């Protein structure tokens, strides 16, 4: 038998947000790479278990099956064969009625599923169980109907994490009865009531122990199942018999039941029978080794890609699963990686085997099939089920909130990484981050936290008021997402510019009078740059193009605007583009996201982020100076106790130039010609008087000629008064 594990990147989330390590062993992949599904939170494991039981299979009485820590959804019952059923191998027996149930796994409270009867219309096919606290178990009972007889086969399909784990009994109950060792000991997994009664229902159930969920199964076909017996210790189940070398698990201590692909003395092995593109086996899969490692290469982002691992077991008695190690011992000495993985894996699905903790490798963190279970379906989006997704709520510290929170795109771009000890991240594009979004974003950072405590590692939280496009134009994505070298290989590492330049545009300040009145002291030119405030420009920029650039330091939020006119710097003003959003000291048990959310809410309520007022533009006179935001606007406050005038987030949002000129006495802009004729305008230069010069005033004329002294004086007086040099009289 074989099983195929499908791991498909869906289009439901941006794969690019979750970097995939190329060329690494699966067991060397980081948690982010392994649990790349947004549903895989720290303590929230989602999955669907759909089990379809043929009516003819229900004749063996009720069976209590434990599904601990699962949540189930209701979905309409269908009496038609499901697709899974259609893919079943040929069945013998009455399969007229199929009951299909979908169980959506999560950490939810324990709820006993009502008994299900063949006669039941299965209106309660899907059960929602919430607020599970470990250890818990879900029990749902099947009440078999009479009529199931020898030769009938049972088909039980379990779908977990969107993957359908389907097991088909190949033998009839009678055959099982005659060969106890080959019976399906589904009840053997009942920790409370180990029963040796054989049933031909093969149930692969999800067992959530503690905060984890995993799937175990027993091999039903021609083999013995696993039996476990509660050793009277809570959640301590000891392997009783069956299989090989299976370990006990103790949920309280983080151990989980592990069932590996174990060889046994009978030559059981596990080989990678089929390797699909993009993966290849360790050169020599060694059946003697419990776990073989497989490489996955050429994982492409932004593509829907299916990676398949097909394990073909030479002996159907083998059960196993595809998993990855949570911690890789000696992974390049990268203790930081291990620490992160350990931190993030905690609470998620993982196995402990041989002292190592292994992480199941499937999307969503749910173990895929193994052993005799075959995963047939690809990952389904949770929203495809057309039912609400349970909140993760319980347990210790899940991200909480609706799944819709997780679905929100979190660009989570690392803005800088090499500026000393501090790394800056932009955590939201829309500027309306919720606690869940922030927490989610932060949890995805590939960062090493001091003390593994996010709150202790946060040193700044700033809100930038600058437009998204303009602020981070020069930021280059990191982690190999956007950069490639000449060989088309992704560049890794941080390539960030800490100082960004924003183009403030240019404004040509037009003249009005086209004379001295356009300049000082008559005209005043002021410029406003958001976040920097008002400042005066020199008068000579009138009629010239005034441009500017703003340099933004994302480290401290300071900005500096450099204003130029005709390529000459005319002003340099500074300001602050960022508000510090204070976050209080960590409260016990308080999530980082909640702290930050609280800080955000407080900041908003304090009026930090008010909207800009209406601004008069054009040539209309300003009716009120109040419409112009002042850099000293004290509406901006911080809660840290430091009241800065800095940014005026609630002021104008654009660059403005204000020109204040004197009002002309005669409502005209040009000096009247009559005035010029009678008074002239300042000339102040040496000229040769020529006919047609019009009014000409010379205060110190130089008069020569044969005129008498009195005539000379007359001419001088005339010049001082101002002579009108007419055009030639001819």
């Amino acid at each position, binding site marked *: 038998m074989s099983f195929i594990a499908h791991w498909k990147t869906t289009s439901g989330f941006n794969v690019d947000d979750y970097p995939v390590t190329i060329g690494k062993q699966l067991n060397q992949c980081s948690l982010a790479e392994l649990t790349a599904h947004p549903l895989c939170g720290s303590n929230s494991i989602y999955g669907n278990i759909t089990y379809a039981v043929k009516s003819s299979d229900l004749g063996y009485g009720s069976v209590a099956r434990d599904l601990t820590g699962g949540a189930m959804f209701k979905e309409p019952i269908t009496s038609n064969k499901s697709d899974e059923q259609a893919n079943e191998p040929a069945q013998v027996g009455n399969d007229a009625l199929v009951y299909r149930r979908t169980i959506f796994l999560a950490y939810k409270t324990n709820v006993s599923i009502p008994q299900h009867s063949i006669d039941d219309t299965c209106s309660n096919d899907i059960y929602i169980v919430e607020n599970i606290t470990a250890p818990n178990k879900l029990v749902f009972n099947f009440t078999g109907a009479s009529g199931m007889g020898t030769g009938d086969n049972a088909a039980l399909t379990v779908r977990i994490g969107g993957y359908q784990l389907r097991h088909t009994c190949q033998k009839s109950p009678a055959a099982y009865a005659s060969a106890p060792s080959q019976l399906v000991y589904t009840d053997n997994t009942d920790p409370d009531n180990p029963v040796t009664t054989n049933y031909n229902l093969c149930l692969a159930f999800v067992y959530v122990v503690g905060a984890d969920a995993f799937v175990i199964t027993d091999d039903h076909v021609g083999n013995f199942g696993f039996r476990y017996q509660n050793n009277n210790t809570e959640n301590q189940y000891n392997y009783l018999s069956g299989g090989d070398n299976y370990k006990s698990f103790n949920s309280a201590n983080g151990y989980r039941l592990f069932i590996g692909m174990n060889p046994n003395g009978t030559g059981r092995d596990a080989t990678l029978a089929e390797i699909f593109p993009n993966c290849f086996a360790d050169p020599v899969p060694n059946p003697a080794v419990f776990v073989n490692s497989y490489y996955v290469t050429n994982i492409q982002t932004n593509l829907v890609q299916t990676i398949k691992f097909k394990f073909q077991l030479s002996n159907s008695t083998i059960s196993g699963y595809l998993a990855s190690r949570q911690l890789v011992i000696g992974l390049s000495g990268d203790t930081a990686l291990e620490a992160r993985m350990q931190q993030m894996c905690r609470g998620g699905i993982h196995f402990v085997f041989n002292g190592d903790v292994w992480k199941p490798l499937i999307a969503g963190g749910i173990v895929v099939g193994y052993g005799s279970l075959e995963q047939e379906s690809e990952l389904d989006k949770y929203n495809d089920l057309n039912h609400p997704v349970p909140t993760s709520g319980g347990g210790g510290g899940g991200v909480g909130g609706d799944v819709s929170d997780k679905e929100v795109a979190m660009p989570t771009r690392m803005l800088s990484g090499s500026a000393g000890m501090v790394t800056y991240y932009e955590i939201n594009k829309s500027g309306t981050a919720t606690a869940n979004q922030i927490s989610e974003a932060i949890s995805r950072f590939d960062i090493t936290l001091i003390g593994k405590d996010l709150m202790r590692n946060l040193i700044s939280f700033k809100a930038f008021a600058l437009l998204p496009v303009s602020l981070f134009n020069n930021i280059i994505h990191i982690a190999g997402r956007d950069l490639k070298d000449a060989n088309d290989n992704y560049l890794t590492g941080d390539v960030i510019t800490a100082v960004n330049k924003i183009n403030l545009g240019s404004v040509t300040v037009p003249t009005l009078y086209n004379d001295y009145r356009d300049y000082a002291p008559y005209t005043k030119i002021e410029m406003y740059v958001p976040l920097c405030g008002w400042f005066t420009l020199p008068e000579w920029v009138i009629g010239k193009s005034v441009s500017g650039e703003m340099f933004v330091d994302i480290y401290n939020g300071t900005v500096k605007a450099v204003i130029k006119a005709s390529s000459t710097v005319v002003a340099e003003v500074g300001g602050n583009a960022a*508000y510090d959003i204070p976050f209080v000291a960590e409260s016990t048990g308080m999530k980082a996201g909640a702290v930050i959310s609280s800080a955000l809410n407080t900041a908003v309520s304090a009026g930090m982020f008010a909207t800009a007022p209406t601004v008069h533009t054009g040539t209309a006179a300003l009716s009120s100076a109040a419409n112009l935001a002042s850099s000293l606007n004290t509406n901006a406050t911080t809660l840290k106790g430091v009241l800065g005038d800095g940014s005026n987030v609630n002021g104008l949002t654009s660059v403005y130039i204000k020109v204040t000129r004197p009002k002309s006495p005669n409502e005209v802009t040009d000096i009247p010609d009559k005035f010029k004729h009678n008074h002239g305008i300042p000339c102040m230069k040496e000229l040769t008087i020529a006919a047609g010069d019009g009014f000409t005033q010379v205060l110190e004329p130089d008069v020569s000629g044969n005129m008498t002294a009195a005539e000379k004086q007359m001419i001088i007086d005339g010049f001082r008064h101002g002579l009108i040099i007419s055009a030639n009289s001819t």
Partner: protein
Amino acid sequence: MTVTLANTANEYYEVNKKYTQVAELQNVSVVYPCDVLRPTFKIKGGYVDANAVTNVFGRNYWITGQTLNDGINYISCTVDAFSSWKSSIIGSSQFVNRSETHGNPYINDPEYANTSDSISQMYRGLEIVGSSLRFVIGVI
């Protein structure tokens, strides 16, 4: 002597005046003593509609008055130095303080009074502050 009576519409301070001849009188005598700058001409006849006497003593004169007595018109004049010596004026090189045609409008002119009232105009450039915020978190 011959005296030409004329009219001019040009202003007092105008140079290059244009004269319109009214009459050319001959056998005109001068009343002595005669100030060349303020001569009086004795003309037989009545009132003459003219405001200027041109080209006497090499000068042009404004007619300042006409006194009629027993058939004699006594025409008193004063010299128009601007038109008389226009050649000396036009063509001279001067440092011109104010000019109708050669003035610089960008030189401050205190003679052209402005009101104390003012007008303001706003010119808008690029918008650089958004209504939404972007959050940057720093982690050690």
